[in-house]
């Protein structure tokens, strides 16, 4: 992979020379491979190298950014000139600027982000893995009659960031995922689809293909016979994947971007109890082998560990440098970046801390309620925290999963739900990516059905 450090640093210097008060350049380059196999046959094989460059200038307090995928000298220098034209259009804002100098830097602990063995894996081997995974899924049960496409995807990417305060950083990451999609059919011809996957930065930490296939099989067969439940307010056991979505909503509401815009249900809530005392939410970009660890953020701020919620109390807002200035806070190393965008607040290894109850024991504790497997749709209001979404799951009766439930809704409010967390599971894992959460028991949610 080409080293773009010189390109980034030279471009920053050129922008300064052309009159920028401050500037930064963010370059992402990657090589990607993915393949889809369906019923044993390769449906798609894709390989590519990809790159993009974004530059940002600040002049007279105003900010502008531009981007290109064309790295030829003339294209880049033309764009640099244009960036300095465009910035004249933007309004001055005293909160604009690079991140504070004293926070710039690279996390000095050990982070493992790159797996050489993954980068070297041959395409034929990858296709073999997909076939093995899909095959295990298709063989799981005779009611599994079709494949929805099973997929391997891997990427090796390099991030380079330079700014006019002297920051120059670069890191490389690898990531891969293997997923299986299956279709099962009832005696009455009703079809169900589901799947499973494994995800990670290191080849040897991915689940075995057979395990992924079998889990996909178990899941799709479990959905057979799905029907609506009655409308009711009931205790809900929240699957880790759904719970991680709730955690994301909390993070979004605690992000400085949303707070200074008053687009958040957590405005003026720092120091207050926003959840059950069982809830502690942490964002840690410095987990040594974390799926979203990184040495610095999208503005060059050194990575750190941030406690968002501790024992139910909101500890702080999460900021990039702009929102930090707006709120009179310190950036927390949570600036996200894409070459096409300005910095924005984003999470890294965001998780809800483990409790000590097993998921099985949580289910056993429910007399009558819902096990919530998935939530769908755009019915999530980040400003009020109100949500109303489509859902699937299983009905719990006397501590046991009974029939699969589908075509229902689940509605409530994110903050109320967080306050109603009664039990936190002990099954936290980053195997499905970040954010992550253990299983939760939430006391009261409204299920809409018949």
């Amino acid at each position, binding site marked *: 992979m080409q080293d773009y450090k010189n390109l980034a640093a030279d471009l920053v210097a050129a922008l300064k020379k052309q009159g920028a008060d401050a500037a930064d350049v963010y370059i992402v380059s990657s090589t990607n491979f993915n393949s889809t196999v369906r019923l044993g046959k390769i449906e*798609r094989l894709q390989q590519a190298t990809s790159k993009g460059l974004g530059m940002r200038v600040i002049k007279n307090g105003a900010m502008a950014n531009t981007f290109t995928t064309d790295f030829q000298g003339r294209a880049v220098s033309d*764009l640099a000139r244009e960036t300095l034209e465009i910035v004249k259009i933007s309004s001055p804002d005293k909160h604009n600027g690079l991140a504070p100098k004293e926070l710039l830097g690279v996390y000095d602990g050990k982070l493992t982000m790159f797996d050489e063995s993954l980068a070297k894996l041959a395409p034929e081997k990858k296709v073999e893995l997909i076939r093995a995974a899909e095959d295990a899924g298709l063989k799981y049960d005779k009611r599994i009659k079709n494949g929805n496409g099973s997929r391997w995807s891997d990427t090796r990417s390099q991030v380079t960031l330079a700014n006019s305060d002297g920051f120059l950083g670069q890191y490389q990451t690898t990531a891969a995922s293997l997923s299986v999609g299956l279709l099962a059919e009832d005696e009455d011809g009703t079809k169900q689809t589901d799947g499973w996957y494994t995800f990670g930065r290191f080849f040897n930490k991915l689940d075995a293909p057979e395990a992924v296939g079998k889990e996909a099989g178990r899941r799709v067969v479990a959905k057979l016979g*799905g029907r609506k439940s009655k409308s009711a307010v009931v205790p809900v056991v929240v699957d880790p994947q759904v719970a991680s979505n709730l955690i994301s909503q909390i993070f979004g509401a605690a992000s400085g971007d949303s707070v200074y815009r008053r687009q958040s249900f957590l405005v003026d809530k720092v120091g207050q109890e926003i959840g059950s005392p069982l809830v502690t939410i942490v964002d840690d970009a410095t987990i040594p082998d974390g799926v979203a660890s990184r040495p610095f953020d999208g503005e060059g701020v050194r990575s750190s560990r941030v406690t968002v919620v501790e024992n139910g109390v909101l500890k702080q807002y999460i900021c990039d440098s702009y929102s930090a200035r707006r709120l009179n806070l310190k950036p927390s190393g949570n600036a996200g970046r894409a070459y096409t965008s300005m910095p924005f607040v984003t999470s890294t290894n965001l998780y809800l801390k483990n409790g000590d109850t097993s998921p099985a024991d949580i289910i056993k504790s429910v007399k009558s309620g819902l096990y919530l497997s998935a939530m*769908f749709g755009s019915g999530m209001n980040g400003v009020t925290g109100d949500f109303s*979404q489509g859902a699937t799951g299983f009905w719990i009766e006397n501590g046991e999963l009974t029939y699969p439930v589908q075509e229902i809704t689940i509605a409530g409010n994110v903050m109320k739900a967080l306050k109603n967390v009664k039990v936190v599971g002990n099954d936290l894992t980053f195997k499905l990516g970040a954010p992550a959460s253990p299983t939760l028991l939430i006391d009261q949610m409204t299920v809409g059905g018949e």
Partner: protein
Amino acid sequence: MKRRDFIIKGSAAAAAVAASDLWVGKLLAGEPAIMPSASLLDTYFHVNRTDIGKVLSATLAKGAEFADVFFEYRITSNLSFEEDAVKSARRGVIQGVGVRAVKGDQIGFAFTEDLSLPSMLEAAGAAAVIASDNTAKSRVAGMTDSKVKNLYPIAELATSTDLNKKLAFIKEANTAAKAHNSKIVRVSVGFNDEVKHVAYANSDGVYWEDSQPLFMFTAFCIAEDGKTRETGYKGGGGRIGMEYFNKTKAADIGKEAARLAIVNLSAQEAEAGVQTVVLGQSESAVLLHEAVGHGLEADFNYKKLSNYSGRVGQKVASDQCTVVDEGLFENMRGTINVDDEGNAPQSTTLIENGVLRGYMNDRISSLQLGVKPSGNGRRQAYNHPPMPRMTNTYLRPGKYSADEILKSVKEGIYAKGFTGGNVDITKGDFTFSCSECYRIEDGKITAPLKGVTLVGNGPDVMTKVAMVGNDLKFTDGGWTCGKNGQMVPVGMGTPTVKVSEITVGGTKVRGQNKA
């Protein structure tokens, strides 16, 4: 694992797809004032036809039956206005080429942002390996230019318009939103536009070029009354130029966003469970998009993954339902002059008087099903292969007035504005989420309700369409559809519709304390 296809209104994801360019007319040498007339290959890609022939040959070298290349040069930009000031100005150029080898329904695909011949040949080599023969089986035919009829005539390309003119519209919307009500505490206005120049060639000798303009003008408001905080959003646009504002006032877009935020301040909690729902004209077409549209994309059908697979000729909706996908409406967001494989868009009747008539096809699915391509092969960009996608999907008007429909409902919900929806195409279960809805009591619209999600099963709900109105209206250019990780702009429309039973995701339950 979620395998769902979806649609969303406005929002960040849509903005990322539909970005714009404010300054290119002034700043990029050679950028034409309206639309380019010289060959795009020369103007943007600096690639000659001989080299394209070499790339296609290399893509066929291992025995693929078909090859194509898709060159894209997209100029995008975005101007965002918050707190009475230009918050950010952005512009970008995305260029690249996608190379595809096809064998049966197998695809080898590669792309590169570097348009030099060695890079393109490397991509061709990567795509070619989907076939494993030692020699080419197909040859590249001589290239013939296809004439493309222009369905997006524009008077003034937004990307070439003077910035001050755009700022004036933005300020107009901002002022109108703030003036609407003193409870409006924040207003954001965005002007996003793009022009996407495409050149396409395939091994059958087809060559075409197209320049696709697209813009979206958006207003977002927050209202506060001391107790609660609510939001309102309105967006509009299409494949149209600045003349959009001759018919639609920027002020009205600002005002509408403010009105929605104020309405939502007094919204009450809705009851959960099965109810009668009247879907207002225009945006309720989200129902069609999810309940019918995705399930009728032919890739899902030749693979027997859709709940509509093998059901052509069968009754799948009530008699009153005729659903059409049509990429031909001038200046509409989902309109295309040519699909991304070179097929002309057309009017495709999907359901006629309740009977399933056909699917939406791309090249591969049409060959698999033995039908003609319907001009629905679309791709997000050069770095994605095409697949069957919707263009502008709508329900033909029926005989009832909106008033008659409302009066027929004693107790129910009137849903008018939506944020999005999604569907599991295999089982057909879909959701769609309201941003503006009201209670219906004795045939009259009464109290506003908090946003609810409606869920149902496609074929089941379509049989419960009890009344179709005579007031068909298309959405005003704010919708983006997602499928298998690819986003494309779409249009849609519907008259007022009554659905006799649909599950409503409220927070209240009869006879039980609320959560």
